[in-house]
């Protein structure tokens, strides 16, 4: 059994279902791996720890990966967990904002992600607006409350598979505008990153194989998979998580190791144009297909 | 005015401090209280003043009135000047102290030019005189003095005795002292407290304050000293 440490991006939630199911069903063991799964409290921490050699893999986000690599962190994407964006711009479904154009003159709350301004600029651009037309407010931890209490008219950085349900359960109704429908290149929301200098392809391939089995299990036997997932922690079996499970299920990468090189190239160019990075890196510095022959 | 009377005995934990006794302060008279160290003189004063003590009184105090008390330690407030310390009583009652009186009294206790000093920069005897002035300025009856002149040289001591006698004339005074000459000069009544109880001692017939070298004072002083040195021996 080879040991492997994986740091999630956040507490265990349905986004991590394939990993948890693979662990619960013993797929890692079958692949000769003993995987330690660590849930951190702060999502900016895991990539740093992988870069510092304190963990083998971390769950992170594609947009952040670009910034991190440009800042010199020795990181590289080796797999994909959720292969669509989850981020969305959420508004009150019964509120005054029914289209992106309605945002003119309104307040937009955001949570720090590093690319919030670039994302907003692109989305506003698709509706003929610019950053001058809205007031951006950092609301940090409280996206949904800020929206529900009417302090902002929209929030950027909400997760479409979570915050919508959250808002409904809290007695509101949310509506999402999707960045990939409004000028942003599509990207992988959740990815696995490894240290580009020390990564061990063999272990990673075995790991991704087991994750792939987890995804397959979820697709083929959703009820059993849910039961295994929910059993890991009693507070996972509530309405929010059950709904999130259903909403997240179609978004898992069916082939976690597969790499869409164009995606990374397009997003890199997008960030360059938005001024967030100062040059364009070749995809090979950002992402690899660990199964490809070197 | 009802006379001030303390009756009862006092206990430290369960050992007796003094046996049942009756201490009556003759109204308008100066009573001196002498006795060996640790016998309970300060305790008696505090009981009369209504302050907490380390002992349990089995008995009671009748006719208690707001008193002025000069404690055994000067207890000056270090953040107030000498003059402000003297005016403390008035300030604590929200009254206005008369600055002229404060100035006058400070001059009379010999500290006229130290009125703006702070207590830590005073000598022991100067501190005691500030505490004396602070007590004398209080317009109270009774006045309780606990070894008020103990830190003073002979000359200041005589002057302060005269000053106190003058300013407290007609008031009920209880003074604790270890100085038999002082008691003989100033008292209308002298009490001796020992473990055996309270006894009245003879006093010169002349009215106080008496000259320190008057024969009847020297006689009373000698007699008292004899009693003190022989007391419980």
């Amino acid at each position, binding site marked *: 059994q080879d040991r492997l440490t994986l740091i999630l991006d*956040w*507490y265990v*939630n349905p986004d991590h279902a394939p990993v948890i199911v693979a662990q619960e069903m013993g797929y890692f063991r079958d692949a000769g791996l003993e995987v330690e799964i*660590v*849930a*951190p*409290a*702060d999502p*900016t*921490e895991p990539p*740093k*720890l992988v870069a*510092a050699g*304190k963990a083998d893999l971390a769950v992170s986000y594609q947009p952040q990966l670009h910034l991190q690599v440009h800042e010199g962190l020795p990181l590289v994407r080796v797999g994909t967990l959720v292969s669509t964006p989850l981020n969305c711009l959420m508004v009150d479904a019964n509120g005054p904002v029914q289209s992106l154009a309605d945002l003119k003159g309104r307040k937009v709350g955001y949570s720090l992600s590093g690319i919030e301004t670039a994302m907003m600029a692109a989305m506003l651009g698709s509706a003929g607006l610019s950053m001058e037309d809205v007031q951006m407010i950092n609301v940090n*931890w409280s996206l*949904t*409350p800020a929206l*529900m*209490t009417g302090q902002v008219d929209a929030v950027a950085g909400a997760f479409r598979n979570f915050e919508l349900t*959250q808002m409904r*359960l*809290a*007695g509101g109704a949310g509506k999402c505008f999707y960045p990939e429908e409004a000028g942003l290149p599509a990207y992988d929301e959740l990815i696995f990153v490894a240290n580009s200098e020390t990564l061990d392809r063999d272990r990673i391939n075995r790991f991704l194989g087991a994750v792939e089995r987890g995804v397959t299990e979820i697709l083929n036997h959703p009820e059993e998979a849910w039961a295994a997932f929910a059993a890991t922690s*009693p*507070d996972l079996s*509530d309405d*929010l*998580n059950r709904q999130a499970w259903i909403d997240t299920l179609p978004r898992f990468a069916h082939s976690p190791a597969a790499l869409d090189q164009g995606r990374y190239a397009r997003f890199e160019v997008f960030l360059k144009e938005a001024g967030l990075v100062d040059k364009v890196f070749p995809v090979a510095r950002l992402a690899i297909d660990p199964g490809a022959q070197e | 005015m009802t006379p001030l009377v303390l009756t009862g005995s006092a206990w430290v934990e369960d050992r007796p401090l003094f046996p049942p006794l009756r201490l009556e302060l003759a109204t308008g008279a100066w009573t001196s209280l002498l006795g060996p160290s640790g016998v309970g003189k300060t305790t008696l004063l505090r009981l009369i003043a209504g302050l907490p003590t380390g002992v349990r009184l089995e008995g009671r105090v009748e006719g208690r009135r707001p008193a002025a008390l000069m404690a055994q330690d000067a207890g000056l407030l270090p953040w107030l000047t000498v003059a402000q310390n003297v005016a403390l009583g008035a300030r604590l009652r929200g009254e206005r102290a008369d600055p002229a009186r404060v100035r006058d009294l400070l001059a009379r206790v010999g500290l006229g030019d130290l009125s703006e000093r702070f207590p830590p920069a005073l000598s022991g005897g100067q501190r005691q005189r500030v505490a004396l002035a602070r007590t004398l300025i209080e317009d109270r009856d009774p006045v309780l003095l606990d070894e008020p002149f103990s830190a003073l040289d002979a000359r200041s001591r005589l002057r302060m005795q005269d000053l106190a006698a003058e300013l407290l004339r007609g008031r009920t005074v209880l003074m604790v002292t270890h100085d038999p000459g002082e008691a003989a000069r100033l008292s209308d009544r002298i009490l001796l407290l020992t473990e055996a109880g309270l006894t009245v001692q003879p006093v010169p017939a002349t009215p106080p304050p008496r000259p320190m070298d008057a024969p009847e004072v020297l006689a009373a002083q000698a007699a008292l000293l004899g009693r003190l040195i022989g007391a419980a021996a």
Partner: protein
Amino acid sequence: MKLARPVLTVAALLGLWQGVIVVAGLPPFLLPGPLAVAEALWRYRADLAWATLRTGTEIITGFGLGAALGIAVALLTSSLPRVGAALRPVLLVSQTIPIFALAPILTLWLGYGMAPKIAVTVLITFFPVASAFLDGLGRTPAAWLDLAQVMGASRWRVMTRIRIPAALPALGTGLTIAAVYAPVGAVIGEWVGGSEGLGALMIHANGRMRIDLVFACLVVVTGLALAFHAAVARLVAARFARYG
């Protein structure tokens, strides 16, 4: 009778709580009512108990180490004022670094277990202890220092026999303040590295908008803080009464 006051206090607190909700018109997703929180307390009792055990361990260990460190720093600063002056910026830096900047470093050095949480607790508790004790050590009545000088005491013995005992009430002040911060420290510490304990449960619940569970955790943390503060205050009152 002895129980009446705490009970009344708790009742008043609950009343205040409900009052804030009603008066300020706070929706349950911002501040749930006492009943909802009580329900969450009961429903998650097993998780909460487990988390409390862990956080409690962190609190006690962190407070112990933090108090020891604070005392050591105060003694060092007070005995060697030059070292103390040089050390002060380091101490102040330790208080101003936000956890998110520190977290990866702590995790790197101390791993994902309890150690980094305890380190954060130590970091938060040592400062008031050091600060208050140092103040106390600097206020020894001059008469006692004179006494020690005349008696030919070494600097070391002036410290142990005079200045330390005289400063114990001030140390007590520092310890009771630190006792309140120890639970806060442990909770914040649970932001570092792996995630177990009340602090972790709390942000976890917050992320899922389980605000009732957030407040259930908060009730437990506050209970811990109250109990810990009361225990330390009582100990300080009992042990340090004669000193100073």
